[in-house]
């Protein structure tokens, strides 16, 4: 019979998720060790939480773009929703929940909730349509969130939350504080975010996304990506499973946004603009569509790379080198000749072992 010129997925599939946990845990421990030994510069230290946020953002966007196969250009919008809702909750609960890790956890959960709500609002009308409408709608969504947050004033006092489009319209009592101040963004935030919290959020994200992908719902999501008509023909509802993937993705982006917002004493709405959405998309595409590990590595490397280059004496060429590295990585990760070349070697190894032939 004909030789089977393809590879079994068995070993790879079973091992891959655990390897991702291992990589993240190892990286966390290594950084902790480096911190103890005082080997991390201040500017690098300030990047630790943002790196965690971007890793979560990249994994979450990969769920939409790589696993579901729908393009989203407004992931920054969900991050923004999470950031501002998380900040507001953390300030509002300052006296009620004095324990900061708990307050942080609650803020992240609320951020995730708001992200998910945004996902539902966008997803329900758009994902029932056939065709690529999600990209354009999410693009608009990101811009709308940004513009709305730039005119909104939100404050809190003992009567609860106050919202207005003018600072004077907040009508806060004397003990109240204005949290979001329109174009000035969120101000006076207590920095609750820690590297450990970011690490735990990454682990939780990995748990949710990887387990989802290898479950009944995750298979249905991938089936819709591979062949929508075939998926429908075996009784898989497209709207339902697209929505599940998109809302989970938006919720994780919301949590990452909350963590990001709570890492700075002030946050501008313009931080979560189109450029941020595209940056996260670049992480996903460079890391490889559908590759969780790729997203983790790409988000980490590309976030710290500009900072690393700053350390070398290449000031003028910093962004040039950054661009060159981007291009090289893109060529390498998406180069079919290179991959088939690697595949040939692995195949030869499998044949030596007398693998799957009949």
């Amino acid at each position, binding site marked *: 019979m004909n030789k089977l010129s393809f*590879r079994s997925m068995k070993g790879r599939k079973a091992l891959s998720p655990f390897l991702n946990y291992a990589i993240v845990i190892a990286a966390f421990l290594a950084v902790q060790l480096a911190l103890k030994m005082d080997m991390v510069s201040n500017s690098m230290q300030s990047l630790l939480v943002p790196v965690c946020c971007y890793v979560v953002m990249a994994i979450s966007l990969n769920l939409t773009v790589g696993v579901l196969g729908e393009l989203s250009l407004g992931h920054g919008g969900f991050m923004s929703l999470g950031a501002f809702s998380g900040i507001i909750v953390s300030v509002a609960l300052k006296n009620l929940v004095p324990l900061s890790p708990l307050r942080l956890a609650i803020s992240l959960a609320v951020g995730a909730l708001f992200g998910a709500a945004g996902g539902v609002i966008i997803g329900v009308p758009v994902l029932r349509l056939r065709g690529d409408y999600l990209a354009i709608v999410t693009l608009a969504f990101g811009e709308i969130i940004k513009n709305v947050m730039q005119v909104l004033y939100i404050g809190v006092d003992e009567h609860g939350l106050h919202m207005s489009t003018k600072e004077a319209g907040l009508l806060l009592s004397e003990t109240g504080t204005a949290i979001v101040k329109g174009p000035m963004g969120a101000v006076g935030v207590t920095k609750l975010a820690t590297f450990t919290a970011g690490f735990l959020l990454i682990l939780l994200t990995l748990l949710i996304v990887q387990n989802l992908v290898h*479950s009944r719902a*995750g*298979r249905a999501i*991938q089936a819709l990506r*591979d062949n929508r008509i075939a998926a429908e023909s075996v*009784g*898989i509802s497209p709207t339902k499973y697209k929505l599940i993937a998109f809302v989970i993705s938006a919720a994780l982006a919301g949590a990452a946004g909350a963590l990001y917002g709570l890492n700075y004493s002030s946050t501008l709405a313009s931080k979560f603009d189109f450029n941020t959405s595209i940056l996260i998309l670049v992480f996903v595409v460079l890391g490889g569509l*559908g590759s969780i590990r790729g997203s983790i590595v790409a988000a980490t490397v590309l976030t710290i790379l500009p900072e690393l280059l700053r350390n070398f004496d290449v000031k003028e060429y910093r962004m040039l080198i950054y661009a060159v590295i981007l291009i090289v990585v893109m060529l390498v990760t998406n180069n079919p000749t290179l991959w088939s070349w690697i595949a040939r070697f692995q195949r030869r190894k499998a044949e030596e072992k007398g693998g799957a032939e009949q």
Partner: protein
Amino acid sequence: MKYTPREPVKLVPVPSTNKIPERDIDKSPILECRHLGIDFGGLAAVKDFNMAIGRTEIAGLIGPNGAGKTTVFNLLTKVYQPTRGTILLDGMDTNTMTTVQVNKAGIARTFQNIRLFNNLTVEDNVKLGLHNQVRYGLWSGIFRLPTYWKAEKQARERAMELLSIFDMGYLAHFKAGSLPYGAQRRLEIVRALATNPSLLLLDEPAAGMNPSETAELMDTIVKIRDTFGIAILLIEHDMNLVMGICEGIAVLNFGQIIAKGTPEEIKNDPVVIEAYLGKKKKEA
């Protein structure tokens, strides 16, 4: 959206049907098409299509390329909404149903242009066929609750069982897209069977197969009908296969049925020979 069975439509004599095998004759047909038709931009791709299929019948739909055979499948599975006519599945009108609902109601199909989930493994493809057979919730899956392990084990065992129909168990962990052509066609059949259909539609199952593979496929199709006790409607150009295993045959030409009957009757029908078989013979 949950599918709710509706009042059965009263059965009236079908204007004309193909020959249903004797063992099915006193039972109501699993599928009945009445005056089915569809227009594409004013052009009738299928017109006045009438056909009934017995509960355990293997029926054939043949005709030259472009006759409208695949379009009939697309109408039955609601990929297209019919312009005219009625489809009764087990006496139930499918007019308001979607593709998903039609599958849940019992029609499964394969595709002329293979449509597998190429980036997923063979086993996952079959498990996707089992999507509505072996169920557990989203959260059980994400947090790996006991129901997840139980259902996944069940799904894996059932998938391997179904794959063994074509002795494809050893391919379980290969990517579907990397399989040879013939294996992809067989996998499509397994995936369709996994949805537990009462009517299986096969669109050119032997296309691209060599004579020995085709002979094997013929045996397997009959075996599937016998073990699952289901009806099978197949489109095929291979006359050995069609004449060899179909009990009733309908011949389609320019969207219209020009003949119906047993293989013997079709072979000897002058209209068919003229429109279809005759032309083939001249070509050959």
